[in-house]
């Protein structure tokens, strides 16, 4: 049984025009309501001990999915369950997270730590609040955790500004681990670090994973890092998962045209190839997504069917792909 199941999840963000704007709309016959379709009908699952990578361009909804799984947002449709229990409930617009077993690590360690709170207190306040640690053991546990992430226990009395980016990200990891999570969500957790520091933090993560048997969702736009860290990878495009499979097969044998294009766009060393091939065109606006398959305006294989019909994720070999090419072709008659 899988630890986390995401089934049919959509997330829409709507602006809420004020009374005066609504009145102006009524008078002029316009409509200033805008809806961003951040996620559309996403289903996936994460098994115990597995690391799932979420990859995609900026604005494809991977961070939104991470925040939904972390209980920061509630889904507009569908549900997200950890051990069969929903991770968050929404009541009249305010979201209440109902589990402590999912913890998130943010992208920017300079923003994710309270600048005026000592790091020891930052680490200990969650477990103290939820009764995981007693007052007497909090200090020792904090020191142990700091040492576990490769810092000195004595650093607990310091403020975040006294640390470098890599050290801060270690503190953020320690804060997440303090809650004894079943699932970690790492939202671009190394993207803002120097490459050399990235490697250190990634090695720390791999080491912790081995020791603690962590389950994680690893959000990144760095295909190389994802291949290195993840067991399974989901490729996202404009709010949908377009391809999913084990890291090995997906990198070796990409099926969806978007995945192929994404992999082809990575500059490579040592192959003698001088140029890389960026995907043509811009990512469409989620305010007004294209009809049919969202990738069709940029896809070299697009046919009439792609304009009209959305292809759901379905099995192809050991992978899953959402492309008409693999299911009857892209011409009108095939439908």
């Amino acid at each position: 049984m899988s630890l986390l199941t995401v089934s049919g999840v959509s997330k829409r963000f709507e602006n809420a025009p004020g009374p005066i704007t609504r009145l102006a709309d009524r008078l002029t016959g316009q409509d200033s309501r805008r809806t961003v379709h951040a996620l559309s009908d996403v289903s996936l699952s994460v098994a115990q001990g597995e690391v799932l990578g979420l990859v995609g361009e900026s604005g494809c909804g991977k961070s939104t999915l991470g925040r939904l799984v972390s209980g920061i947002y509630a889904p507009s449709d569908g549900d997200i369950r950890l051990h069969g229990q929903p991770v968050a409930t929404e009541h009249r617009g305010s979201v209440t997270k109902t589990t402590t077993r999912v913890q998130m690590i943010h992208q920017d360690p300079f923003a994710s730590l309270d600048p005026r709170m000592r790091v020891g207190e930052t680490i200990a306040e969650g477990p103290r609040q939820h009764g995981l640690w007693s007052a007497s053991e909090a200090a020792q546990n904090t020191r142990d955790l700091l040492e576990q992430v490769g810092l000195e226990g004595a650093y607990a009395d310091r403020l975040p500004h006294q640390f470098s980016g890599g050290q801060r990200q270690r503190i953020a990891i320690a804060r997440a681990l303090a809650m004894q999570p079943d699932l970690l969500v790492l939202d671009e957790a190394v993207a803002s670090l120097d490459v050399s520091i990235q490697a250190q933090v990634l090695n720390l993560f791999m080491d912790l994973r081995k020791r603690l048997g962590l389950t994680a969702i690893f959000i990144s736009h760095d295909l190389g890092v994802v291949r290195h860290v993840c067991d399974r990878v989901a490729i996202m495009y404009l709010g949908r998962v377009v391809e999913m499979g084990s890291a090995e097969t997906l990198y070796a044998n990409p099926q969806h045209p978007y995945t192929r294009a994404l992999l082809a766009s990575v500059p490579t060393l040592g192959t003698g190839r001088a140029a890389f091939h960026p995907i043509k065109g811009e990512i469409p606006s989620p305010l007004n997504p294209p009809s049919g398959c969202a990738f069709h305006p940029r896809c070299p294989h697009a046919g009439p069917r792609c304009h009209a019909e959305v292809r759901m994720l379905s099995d192809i070999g050991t992978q899953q792909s959402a492309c008409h090419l693999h299911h009857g072709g892209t011409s009108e008659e095939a439908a």
Partner: protein
Amino acid sequence: MMPDVSIDHDTLSPDGATSTTASGAPVQTRAARLRAFWSDFCRAPVAVVSLIVIILLAVVSFGAPWVSPQDPYDMASLDWMDAFLKPGSVGAGGYTHWLGTDNVGRDMLSAIFYGLRTSFVIGLSAGVLALALGICVGLSAAYFGGRLESLLMRIIDLQLSMPAILLALVLVAMMGQGVGQIILALVVAQYAYFARTTHGAATVERGKDYIEAARSTPLPARRVVFRHLLPNVLPPLIVVATVQVASAIALEATLSFLGVGLPLTEPSLGSLISNGFKYIHTDRTWLSIYPGVFLMITVVAINLVGDQVRHVLDPRNQR
């Protein structure tokens, strides 16, 4: 520990104040930061002098029963024969009235010391209470957002569109005279400034990741607001608070001058000026001028200190 993570340790020794992190930021203890703040503050001699003046005024006003030559509250110690003595003349009590006496023979210097005490008490308590109320309103508006935010901030806007003195006048006229009433009126007239400053700073902070991290732990709203949001919006508020204390003292003096503040039996600087104003057309100008000078010195000194604190706390001016 893994060998490939040890690079951070060499650059960060646990002992403290002088070492630097890998990013080069100075490592400081709280005491070292206070020392740095103090040395930055001392760069403006005007502010240092102002601070000394404030401390002196606070000492003489709160120590008024011990330093002033006469108890202006004690009608029995007043002598009608001493009325309207010029500054520097010796009265029936056998001591010099350095700033003269008023119409009932009250020593002006003593009255000013006691009046200053009233002004300080009213200014400080009104400032602190308005700060507390403003923080509550501003923080709840910023944290909870939505309709509550619109409602609260429109009320604040409405209130800021009216002069504070007008609002305070109406309130005092409704509630009657007395220290408690004046403080309440000043709090109502001034909390809006704090609420707006708090709201502005908190709106910036609430979008930051550390608030999201605290919410997604999850921590209860009360803890997120008071342990994470509040400490991060406090620095600009401290500056507003110093200015508002000065402004509360001036407001109280204005109310008393207009005759709706404190009675002369409980002198504040404003009521002393007001009392002297009755005799301004005679040559007894000292009755109004000296309390006025003390009021001016107090307000200007507090403002100068507040200015320098703001200057030092501004990250752009930090070394």
